[in-house]
């Protein structure tokens, strides 16, 4: 009885001791957890803060924070499982000792339960406390980046607490279950086993590698070729999955094939440094390739997150400048005759036109009943309307058209509208009040200018559209700088009082809108970037620790047999350098491919300036190479220390 009681008291002590004694590996694990809680808690606090949505232009924030939360959740699961498996492996010996000293598996399970609970509580407490202290600043940062009103309070909300608590509880329960399963599976002798068997050689390495290459190329193909349409996110997701799977396969098989080749080349293999390095990596090929793949994947995520953030930051003005070639745009149904209030107006243009959504095949345009068929926006106007808008005269004849698009050039010699064929006399370089960008592939509008209204009517008849022509009238207005805001408000009021008002858009609200979206993205980018970076650093750090422990004995023996201290050092350096660049190299290639997709996605939100994205990418990649090298050098100190203990 007494004994049993003692044992029970002992378990929490052992559990806490287990964490404290291994603080060099549990420390980072707990820190990462706490940081994740902090970010998660802050994001949920923002999401559940209803006040935010009372702000103008805050529509994007909720969606973006939700996306951030989901991404964070998805990333944390594999990360925690991976680091957790590393932790439990490091502690197997200790656990085995406990079983031999008389703790049953039940007791060990209880101990692990207590341990997980303690970690969970510490992480939760640390993260939420940080959240409470810094949340306010985070919130202000978000509002600031998004250009939103700063007077709103950061509210504490029970729901955010609850969400965070439940999500991380599930996460840590998951790791606990995994640990329990692995403890139940193992016998003490297995736990205790002093020698480490080499990893089994990957079977079908060549086949596996080829599959990896195919899958990776598939992922690349999707990324490069997928169009921005309803499937874009499915495609995006598929591409990511393919690339991840491909990376794992290629790293494993590739490393194996490479090392086998090296081993076969006896003149190369039986050189002191190569000998130790090659056999060392080959021994733990599974572990090595997994951690290298992880490093590669996380590196890619970090680079891409940073890249998007930076591009957006520098691209924001491009987005606004492209969209707003004017200060105010007003659109009405029908042809409007009444004139706008002219107070403070520097200049205005009026355009009357008809918009159609047509199916495009090269230079053939036709009407389709199919709602889901991809359609292009085609804007028809007469020569007269075109000139009235403030453009130079065209002198079109019957059967002739002039075209324009705000996207990449059309280069049509002729154009087919239904069964009618028109000669394209001119592709216009510009139209007043519309900006052209060659990067605008998705938001582009094709302008077709016909001779006169009769031609328009004929054409529409041929296309199968009869009845009254659905004209729209658009005003674009340039304002004087002073009292701009008030003038815009007056114009807005005036517009809303006109019959047939369709839309009102102005540069100031457009800027605010863009800023709130971009600001939200920036905020997410910064925090997700930091979380990924922490994950990456910990994976790298754990890799060095576990390899240090693996190699320590080997170096010890080799020193006895006659390897000098200097040779030990140079061998270690060699070993580190051999695999140093692989994840970085692949991460860079992944990024270069992903840029294709990013350019397209950014085009959707109106960032067509590819040079911004390209320059940001170069900057971010260079910056990341430094971070990578720096952290590799720093963490390899740990390796040295362990190996040469």
């Amino acid at each position: 009885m007494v004994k049993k009681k003692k044992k029970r008291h002992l378990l929490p002590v052992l559990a806490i001791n287990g964490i404290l004694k291994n603080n060099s590996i549990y420390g980072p694990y707990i820190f990462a957890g706490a940081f994740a809680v902090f970010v998660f808690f802050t994001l949920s606090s923002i999401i559940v803060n209803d006040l935010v949505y009372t702000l103008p232009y805050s529509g994007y924030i909720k969606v973006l924070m939700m996306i951030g939360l989901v991404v964070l959740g998805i990333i944390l699961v594999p990360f925690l499982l991976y680091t957790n498996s590393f932790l439990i492996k490091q502690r197997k010996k200790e656990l085995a000792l406990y079983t031999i000293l008389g703790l049953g598996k039940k007791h060990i399970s209880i101990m692990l339960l207590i341990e997980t609970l303690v970690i969970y509580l510490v992480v939760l407490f640390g993260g939420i406390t940080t959240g409470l202290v810094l949340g306010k600043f985070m919130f202000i940062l978000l509002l600031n980046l998004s250009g939103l009103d700063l007077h709103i309070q950061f509210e504490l909300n029970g729901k955010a607490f609850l969400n965070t608590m439940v999500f991380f509880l599930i996460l840590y329960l998951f790791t606990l279950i995994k640990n329990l399963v692995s403890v139940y599976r193992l016998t003490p002798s297995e736990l205790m086993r002093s020698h480490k068997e080499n990893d089994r050689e990957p079977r079908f390495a060549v086949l596996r590698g080829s599959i990896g290459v195919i899958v990776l190329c598939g992922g690349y193909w999707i990324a490069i070729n997928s169009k921005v349409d309803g499937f874009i996110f499915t495609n995006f997701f598929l591409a990511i999955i393919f690339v991840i799977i491909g990376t794992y396969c290629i790293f494993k098989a590739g490393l194996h094939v490479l090392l086998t080749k090296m081993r076969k080349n006896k003149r190369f293999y039986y050189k002191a440094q190569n000998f130790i390095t090659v056999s060392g990596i080959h021994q733990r090929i599974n572990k090595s390739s997994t951690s290298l793949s992880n490093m590669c994947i996380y590196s890619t995520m970090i680079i891409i997150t940073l890249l998007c953030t930076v591009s957006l930051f520098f691209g924001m003005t491009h987005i606004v400048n492209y969209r707003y070639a004017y200060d105010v745009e007003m659109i009405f149904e029908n042809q409007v005759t009444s004139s706008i209030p002219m107070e403070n107006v520097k200049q205005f243009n009026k355009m009357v036109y008809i918009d159609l959504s047509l199916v495009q095949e090269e230079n053939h345009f036709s009407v389709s009943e199919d709602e889901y068929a991809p359609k292009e926006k085609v804007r028809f106007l007469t020569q007269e309307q075109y000139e009235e808008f403030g453009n130079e005269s065209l002198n079109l004849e019957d059967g002739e058209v002039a075209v324009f698009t705000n996207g990449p050039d059309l280069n049509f010699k002729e154009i087919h509208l239904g069964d009618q064929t028109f000669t394209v006399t001119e592709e216009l370089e510009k139209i007043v009040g519309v900006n052209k960008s060659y990067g605008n592939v998705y938001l582009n509008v094709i302008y077709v200018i016909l001779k006169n209204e009769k031609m328009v009517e004929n054409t529409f008849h041929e296309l199968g559209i009869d009845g009254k022509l659905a004209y729209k009238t658009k005003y674009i207005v340039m304002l004087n700088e002073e009292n701009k805001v008030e003038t815009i408000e007056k114009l807005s009021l005036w517009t809303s009082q006109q019959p047939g008002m369709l839309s009102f858009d102005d540069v100031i609200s457009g800027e605010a809108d863009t800023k709130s979206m971009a600001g939200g993205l920036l905020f997410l980018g910064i925090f997700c970037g930091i979380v990924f970076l922490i994950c990456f650093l910990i994976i790298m750090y754990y890799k060095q620790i576990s390899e240090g422990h693996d190699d320590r004995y080997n170096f010890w023996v080799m020193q006895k047999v006659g390897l000098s201290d200097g040779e030990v050092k140079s061998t270690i350096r060699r070993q580190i350098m051999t695999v140093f660049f692989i994840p970085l190299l692949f991460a860079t290639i992944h990024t270069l491919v992903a840029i294709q997709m990013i350019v397209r996605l950014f085009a959707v939100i109106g960032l067509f300036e590819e040079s911004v994205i390209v320059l940001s990418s170069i900057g971010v990649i260079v910056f990341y190479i430094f971070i990578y090298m720096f952290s590799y050098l720093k963490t390899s100190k740990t390796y040295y220390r362990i190996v040469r203990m």
Partner: protein
Amino acid sequence: MLLLEIKNLDKIYSSRLGLNKVQALDSISFSIEQGEYIAVMGESGSGKTTLLNILATIDRPTSGEVILEGENILGLKQSQLSAFRRDNLGFVFQDFNLLDTLSIEDNIYLPMVLAGESFGDMEERMKALTKRLGIENLLKKYPYEVSGGQKQRTAVARALITRPKLVLADEPTGALDSKSSEHLLELFSEIHKGGQTILMVTHSIKAACHASRVLFIRDGKIFNQIYRGVNSYEKMYKKISETLTSLQVGGEF
């Protein structure tokens, strides 16, 4: 011909603060002739491993000299030591110290690879050695796939492949069953007959009986030595056990 001369070796281990001092070796002097097979015996803690480590240049004495073929090896610089070790010495350890990362074959090559020898030379020597040691069929296996005796024979092959002037062995039979021990000792005798100089630390009287000379150490000092000479195995065995008893009895006073 004189191979190794050990003069007045002292080794004092002191704790970090210098409060506790242990005299592990106390003015030990002896010499080893070329081709001798010496067994070192003594109680646990008497300083055998310490002595071996000093000869192996893994550890340094507090004072004294170790002279190999006229050269004082304690005068070697730290950077020269590892080269010295792999050129002149071969080691066999109680717990084998084989690398699990390397196949049996590669484990044997290790010292030669470290010395930067060409693969052709290594392969030739390895083939001859492994055949003699009876492990030629295990070359592609890994240490964790073979028995303890086979591991130790691998370790012997690794010690011999550099053709060292002196083989140092610390309780090489310690982790083996009696049959494997017997086999290994026969192997040592055979190598010795081939002209190899060997210094072996052992607790086993049987093992010591194979040696041409047995040194007894007590409290860091040489207590006695017995030459095999023309003694029969039984006589040798008796002499050694008598000496060990007197070592113990002496220790009790």
